[in-house]
């Protein structure tokens, strides 16, 4: 497939950025294949693609992290060499990484001047930066206290510092890599206002994201990447989310989740006054009350770090807690040696952890070994004193085929599978145990669109077969489309419960930010 150039802007001005024939390989993996793209000044240009499509590699080349094997970079029409970040900065390129590059115990001001100090003494740089920062924050609604330490700032404010850093370095071209992944909806809206202001001032913005909604909302032009290639560049106004999804995946994708109304039965999980204090003495859960009935999905919405992980850990038997948890009317042990993952599984709870790399899988181990974790006591997996490895392998193949894990080879290590297939492995292990209650955290984090569709269908099928599901996700879209009821967590408490049909993102966003339901 050849790259399609952006013919959209009939302008006499040179493109702010033009890439011609960029290729980059890491060993046998061709991360970028002959990529060409033109980004016009004063526009927001979206780059969209699945994980591993090569978006980040391309931007790293532009920011001087990697050297391209072939190809040329033109900035404002001039051929430019970008051997390192310093060169990128001098060329007027600023980058806001997905994981912020800030020094946590430095002030905002110190972070802004780092690397671009005037002279060997700090005093003059700091006072100059202070005035400049005031001007920039006024101009672009980028308000932050210059003397605050980074570690005291919210994630949204830290992101503003990253943008200020780029602007302070006189960046005319701003690259943002997955900027909304960690933001509340309100913070994301504010970010888009900032981007609007920047565009109005003539800055050029490249927005890398996998969220179709953001692309449709803010960009002027959008380029789609698939497997290292640029498959299309289109004007945003002339395309649709469905078309973009198809371009990303290479086939038609169902973006909406089709589901019948829930037919909830008796309560499966009943939680009352659940409290957790962590090792540092911080209260993670401050009295949680909730219930999940058979045949329904309870979605827990919230910005990450507000106690959702603690909730999953307690219910999954990973951490100890106080309060009461009943499953099918029987209380579960919350403290002592009985409060562990095995007794939870025996009680009919399966757990798909939030972080599949750290908690869901052992990446170095093979798929079949991973399939036995947590269920290694299963008599079907035993033969006398020894593990019946053959039986486990056969069982693994069966489950891999049921869940469309590709390739369905049980002997290759978990780390060799793509994110989506790793997640399907974990889901296959937990769902096929026929649990009464499935705990599932971030089921589609780092999973490509095609696999998301499959995973959502599996969860709906499980619900329709009369099982209870507790779903934790930071993706509000996912919560809205899958849940039968939505509970919003903030600061270790449930802020409120809503029906998806009777609420909207604004209301949930306010609850997620800790505002009470009445104010919404």
């Amino acid at each position: 497939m050849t790259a399609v150039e952006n013919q959209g802007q009939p302008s006499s001005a040179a493109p702010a950025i033009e890439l011609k024939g960029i290729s980059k390989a890491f060993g046998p993996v061709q991360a970028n294949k002959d990529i060409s793209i033109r980004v016009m000044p004063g526009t927001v240009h979206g780059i969209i693609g699945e994980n591993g499509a090569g978006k980040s590699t391309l931007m790293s080349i532009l920011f001087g992290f990697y050297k391209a094997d072939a190809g040329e970079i033109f900035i404002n029409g001039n051929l430019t060499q970008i051997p390192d970040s310093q060169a990128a900065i001098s060329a007027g390129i600023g980058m806001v990484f997905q994981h912020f590059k800030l020094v946590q115990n430095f002030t905002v001001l110190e972070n802004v001047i780092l690397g671009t100090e005037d002279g060997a003494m700090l005093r003059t740089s700091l006072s100059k930066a202070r005035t400049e920062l005031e001007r920039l924050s006024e101009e672009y609604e980028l308000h932050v206290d210059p003397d605050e330490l980074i570690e005291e700032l919210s994630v949204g404010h830290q992101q503003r510092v990253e943008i200020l850093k780029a602007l302070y370095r006189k960046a005319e071209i701003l690259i943002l890599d997955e900027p909304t992944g960690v933001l509340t909806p309100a913070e994301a809206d504010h970010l888009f206002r900032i981007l609007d202001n920047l565009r109005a001032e003539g800055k050029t913005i490249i927005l890398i994201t996998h969220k179709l909604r953001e692309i449709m909302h803010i960009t002027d032009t959008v380029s789609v990447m698939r497997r290292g290639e640029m498959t299309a560049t289109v004007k945003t106004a002339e395309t649709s989310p469905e078309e973009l999804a198809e371009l990303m995946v290479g086939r038609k994708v169902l973006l909406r989740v089709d589901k019948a109304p829930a037919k909830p039965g008796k309560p499966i999980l009943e939680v009352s006054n659940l409290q957790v204090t962590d090792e540092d003495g911080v209260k993670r859960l401050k009295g949680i009350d909730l219930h999940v009935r058979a045949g329904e999905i309870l979605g827990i919405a919230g910005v990450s770090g507000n106690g959702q992980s603690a909730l999953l850990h307690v219910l999954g038997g990973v951490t100890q807690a106080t309060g009461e948890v009943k499953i099918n009317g029987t209380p579960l042990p919350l403290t002592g040696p009985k409060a562990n993952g095995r007794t939870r599984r025996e009680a009919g709870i399966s757990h798909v952890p939030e972080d599949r790399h750290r908690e869901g899988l052992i990446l170095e181990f093979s798929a079949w070994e991973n399939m036995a974790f947590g269920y290694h006591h299963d008599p079907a997996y035993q033969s006398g004193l020894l593990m019946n490895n053959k039986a486990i392998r056969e069982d693994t193949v069966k489950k891999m085929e049921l869940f469309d894990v590709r390739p369905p080879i049980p002997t290759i290590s978990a780390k060799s599978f793509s994110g989506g297939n790793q997640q399907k492995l974990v889901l296959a292990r937990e769902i096929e145990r026929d649990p009464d209650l499935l705990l599932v955290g971030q089921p589609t984090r780092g999973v490509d669109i095609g696999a998301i569709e499959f995973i959502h269908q599996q969860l709906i099928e499980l619900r329709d077969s009369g099982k209870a599901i507790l779903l934790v996700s930071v993706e509000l879209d996912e919560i809205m489309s899958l849940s039968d009821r939505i509970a919003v967590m903030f600061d270790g408490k449930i802020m409120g419960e809503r029906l998806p049909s009777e609420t909207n993102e604004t209301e949930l966003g306010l609850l997620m930010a800790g505002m009470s339901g009445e104010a919404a």
Partner: protein
Amino acid sequence: MDLETLLQVLDSTIRLATPLLLACLAGLFSERAGIFDIGLEGKMLAAAFFSGAVAYTTGTVWLGLLAGIAASLTLSGIHGLASITFRGNQLISGVAINFLASGMTVVIAEDWFRQGGRTPSLVGDARFKPIELPLSGIDIPLIGPIYTDLISGHTILVYLALLLVPASWWLLYRTRFGLRLRAVGENPAAVDTAGINVTGLRFAAVGICGVLCGIAGAYLATALQAGFVKEMSAGRGFIALAALIFAKWRPWHALVACLLFGLLQALSLRPDVVTAMTSFDVPVQLLDALPYILTVVILAGFVGKAIPPRAGGEPYVKEQ
């Protein structure tokens, strides 16, 4: 306890705190840049030997000092190469340097001087001499003796070490270099994306560490004592590390921590004073052990939460 005894104890506190302070500041620069250095001990020992040997051979203490710094810098270079360039484990590299110095100094000393692994005693210009500050001996009650006996009469290296405290503070908190150095120990990715060379910055820090350790070692052999003896660093590198944690990686606090350790070492030299003060017959062995006991207590984390530089001990690998 009379004023004279007190001044004697404090005077020896300063002398004994000096090598600790130099090593502690050395560690501070290295660790603030994200390179853990448990090889302070080995670098001091190597510097002590080479400064003693060269001072004896040439009869000039300044050449001895330079030789000590060169020896320590060489070991720093090895540590830098292993932990920065080749991204090796910083603890293992530090342990290796300690073993290397411990064995090498004795073997070379035996080969060169045939005195059982020590250098001959240093005399005359081969040793740093106390400096009598102007106006010492001035006859004012209280202030006179304090000035003459406590403040005046130390070697140049003692005054240098004390001056290095404000100098380090100023360098770390008031200059561009200091800002970058502290940043690279906290988040090297932030430094890298700001267009600054992480490797160069870390080597600079390790280099400063080498120079300061070199001075510390030379002080041991050519100022505190007259010549090198086997294992003469006697765990001071590790005590300096404990002081560094106690000081939470801050220069002024490092001074206080090192003076505390120096005081404990000074007291162990004067059991009579301790006995007089406590009216107990405190065993000398216990006094000798005190600095090390305090070290263990500090390293075990009994002094409150000390947060080391966040990127400490981690080689920097550019993520994609």
